[in-house]
């Protein structure tokens, strides 16, 4: 009897230990990917729910038509960098963590905007410059930098400041944690389905 009781407690202890470990590493097997444009590069990060980094995972970029237009691999920190691929937005960034685990991130034209526009519109400010220069030649000459150059530097600095915030927002929106509500809701569903099944059987008999 006492041996049986002891085993009871060992089992309970094991389960408790498991549950204590659970929150810290929970969802280590759900993978996420996030990407952003910085200048003429596409950068991003792969990570597992709970905080682990996705190391050495292949990353592919597809255009709206499903054609592969870019490729990279995450490094030791789970980050990747590639030349900004040109293609019809929205682009799809796909990270494959092996074992059937895969994450996708869609980049809308809006998100691609900064880099794509900077690349595409570079000639435009140059054309606009003479007009601006004609209006206020002193101001441009005094600063020693063209409007386009200032614009480029400012957008680069702003992007560097804003990108970490964006990454955080993506994480928040993608809810990578299981809450107590999910767990209790699931148990409730199982109870309900069992009740439904029993009810169906009892009607048949």
């Amino acid at each position, binding site marked *: 009897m006492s041996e049986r009781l002891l*085993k009871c407690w060992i089992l309970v202890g094991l389960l408790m230990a498991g549950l204590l*470990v659970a929150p810290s590493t929970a969802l280590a097997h759900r993978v996420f990917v996030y990407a952003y444009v910085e200048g003429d590069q596409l950068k991003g990060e792969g990570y597992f729910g709970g905080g682990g980094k996705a190391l050495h995972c292949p990353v592919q970029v597809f255009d709206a038509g499903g054609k592969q237009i870019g490729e990279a691999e995450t490094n030791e920190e789970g980050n990747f960098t590639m030349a900004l691929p040109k293609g019809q937005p929205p682009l799809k960034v796909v990270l494959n963590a*092996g*074992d*059937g685990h*895969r994450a996708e991130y869609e980049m809308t034209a809006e998100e691609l905007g900064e880099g794509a526009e900077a690349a595409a519109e570079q000639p435009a400010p140059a054309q606009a410059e003479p007009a601006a220069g004609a209006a206020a030649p002193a101001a441009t000459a005094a600063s020693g930098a063209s409007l386009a150059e200032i614009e480029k530097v400012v957008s680069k600095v702003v992007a560097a400041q804003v990108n970490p915030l964006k990454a955080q927002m993506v994480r928040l929106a993608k809810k990578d944690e299981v809450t107590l509500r999910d767990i209790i809701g699931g148990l409730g569903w*199982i*109870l309900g389905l069992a009740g439904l*099944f029993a009810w169906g059987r009892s009607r048949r008999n």
Partner: protein
Amino acid sequence: MHISEGVLSPPVLATGAALSAAGLAWGLRKIEVEKLPQVALMAAVFFLASLIHLPVGPSSVHLVLNGLVGLMLGWAAFPALAVGLALQAILFQFGGLTGLGVNTFNMALPGVICYYLFSPWVMRDSRWASMAAGFAAGFCGVLFAALLTAVSLVASGDAFTSAAWAILAANLPGMVLEGVVTAAAVSFLRQVKPALLNIDAVH
């Protein structure tokens, strides 16, 4: 082992859904009303087991318990795991709804195989024999599920050897862990409530 959305090809998804539907129909017929609470209980256990992560080396593995569910439920493992997986997909975003058929089949069939292979041994008089059978059921439940996962990926176009070996290597700690946990559960149940271990009368 929860294969994500968008990894598998449509023929593989369709095949998995069809096989799971067949297993589900057969499993539901096998459930007697008196055994229903046990099926629901095991569905709940399976649903929660995926949240219990244990650190193994640099990574961590989570419990699957498909071997234990199979030992206790036989063919009723199909409905129990289908419900558990559907709720995991909806509430935890594990796997995905399109891959539900494939994932159900990949985890429930090993459970049923373990039931046929090991449940006769679990009820032996020797405690060691039944614990060994429990370990084998836990180990093989994950092993077979890993093999079926590899087959699903290969059928969808992955290179065979790399996929198979990566999955087996990644799941080896999980197999041992499952074996230990299932052996402990079997040893516990046969002393406390032996009726739970052979709920299905079919052999």
